[in-house]
């Protein structure tokens, strides 16, 4: 899956897949994580695991790649479909959240750095 000059591969670099395949693999994987009660407990009073933050960071880092791909490769079509407000709202919230809690490294955001800086500019 491409984001401009960058290419994301599944399994952290070992498998080259198309964007639709990548997104489906990612969404299925995230669903598995969220359904895992050892990571996201459901029962009353059950504590979160000590390394919970690591799991969250991994999920959010990978989600960023989907945003990067959409903005780089499909934004004109998004505008044609009149969906840019929805996309921007989702990304805006995502970005403010990961920025507030420092959940995604800045190097990861380089593919759409200008957009990121525009949103985060005070």
């Amino acid at each position, binding site marked *: 899956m*491409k984001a*401009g*000059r960058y290419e994301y591969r599944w399994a952290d670099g070992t498998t080259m897949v198309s964007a639709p395949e990548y997104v489906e693999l990612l*969404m*299925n994987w995230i*669903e598995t994580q*969220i*359904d895992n009660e050892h990571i*996201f*407990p*459901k029962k*009353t009073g059950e504590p979160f695991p000590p390394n919970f933050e690591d799991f969250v960071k991994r999920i959010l880092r990978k989600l960023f790649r989907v945003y990067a791909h959409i903005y780089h*490769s*499909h934004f*004109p*079509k998004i505008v*044609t*479909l009149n*969906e840019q407000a*929805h996309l921007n*709202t*989702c990304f805006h*919230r995502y970005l403010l959240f990961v920025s507030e809690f420092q959940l995604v490294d800045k190097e990861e955001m380089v593919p759409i750095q200008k957009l990121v800086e525009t949103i985060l500019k005070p």
Partner: protein
Amino acid sequence: MENQEEDEVVLAKVTSEVEDNFEDEGLVSNSTLEKVAAAKKYIENHYNRRMRHIQQRKERRWVLEQKIASLDVSEKEQLELLEDLQRKETEYTRLMRNRLCVDDFDLLSIIGRGAFGEVRLCREKKTGNIYAMKKLKKSEMLSRGQVEHVRAERNLLAEVASDCIVKLYYSFQDPEYLYLIMEYLSGGDVMTLLMREETLTETVARFYIAQSVLAIESIHKHNYVHRDIKPDNLLLDKYGHMKLSDFGLCKPLDCRNISAMNVNEPLNDENINESIDGDENCSIGRRGRRWKSPLEQLQHWQINRRKLAYSTVGTPDYIAPEVLLKKGYGVECDWWSLGAIMYEMLVGYPPFYSDDPVTTCRKIVSWRTHLVFPEGARLTPEARDLICRLLCDSEHRLGSHGAGAEQIKAHTWFKDVEWEKLYEMDAAFKPVVNGELDTQNFMKFDEVECPKPARTGSGPSWKVSITPQNINFVGYTYRNFDAVRGSRHSLDIKGSVSPPRSSTDSTRSDSAIDYTKLSTGGDGSQQ
């Protein structure tokens, strides 16, 4: 040299990708458009729900702080109460993450059935709590144009917290069905009450009509028009208090014949001798040859009512003429239904009853001619007057033109009603309930075998929820904060589940005596 060539190749690749991208713009498939619409709806609903959740959490905190301020409790106890609310909020947030499905409940007796599905008793496996599960078939909702109706019902139940309205705890869906998990009211409903008792004393009727006024007022304040209020939608809890329900399990009328109805074709009214008795909108008719005697009417209604209860076709008996004629209607159509129910409570059968639903509709539309009190009916003048002011044209009906419930409450028939205490005092009728699983106050329904849906349906649920087919049902999932139980320290923010019992006074005793008389087959004296 090699590096330079590689860079050029990459750049060229990117350029060609961009070009391909622009070419794609003209070829947007219908499938893509549907997915876009579904995605938009999903996103909008998601953030609206988030905002509402945050707002409601602030409100709950504020309400608790106000209560603490008004109580004389120690600082330590104050902290405990606040910490308990915080814990409940945390658990509620976790509850919101649970993906509920029908497998989380043990299915028990069927207590209702309609065209779109059924209602049955169920027990939540995790907590043991008893609920009523209403199950609605999506394909039926879609084919009968009921999607907005169901959404409105779910939204109303999720939004209104009222003693007069049955409580919604959860809603969820699978590929085939929508589910509403609701408060189970084991006292039955007004329909089964009337099936046993034929008529009610004016004291008992007044109590339930008054509670119905509060319930209808409650939904009207939330801009909801019910349109199909009838005795089987008036549920009774185990103490005999009434709650309005069944907003979406209505039994649709067979409307094919109704639309052909000729409004200007009265039914042989020359056979009916009329005399004006006071109100010009009200006719007291003597028996004509064509119509059955009141006793025959009563007997036929009792037989047909039982059939109707089991059928999936609704009765038009309580529906306002403007609804039947499909002209525009407003909130006042619900007050008409209330008038029809009141008539039935006191007379024994609906005011426009006929064995044939189409004839019933014609009578309703020609209500001026056909609103008749049988000679033997012993109603007070005030009761007749109220019925006639509810069963009349929408322009002159009590409660219309924004006058609302206050105009009805002001009627002299309600003179002694203490409106603020209706849900605190003892109910006028006390149903027999043996244990929380008791369904003796409901009709008995046979089981119909249906295959058990798989927990997650086909494929991952994130896929299912975004398919175009499900666009109509986006945003259906709901969990009520009351589903989270507090510790013994917590104040019950929304009031106690069991309202405090006021001591019975002579009025209540009179009511009990009258009710006993009725149950032994006596005529029952009027108040």
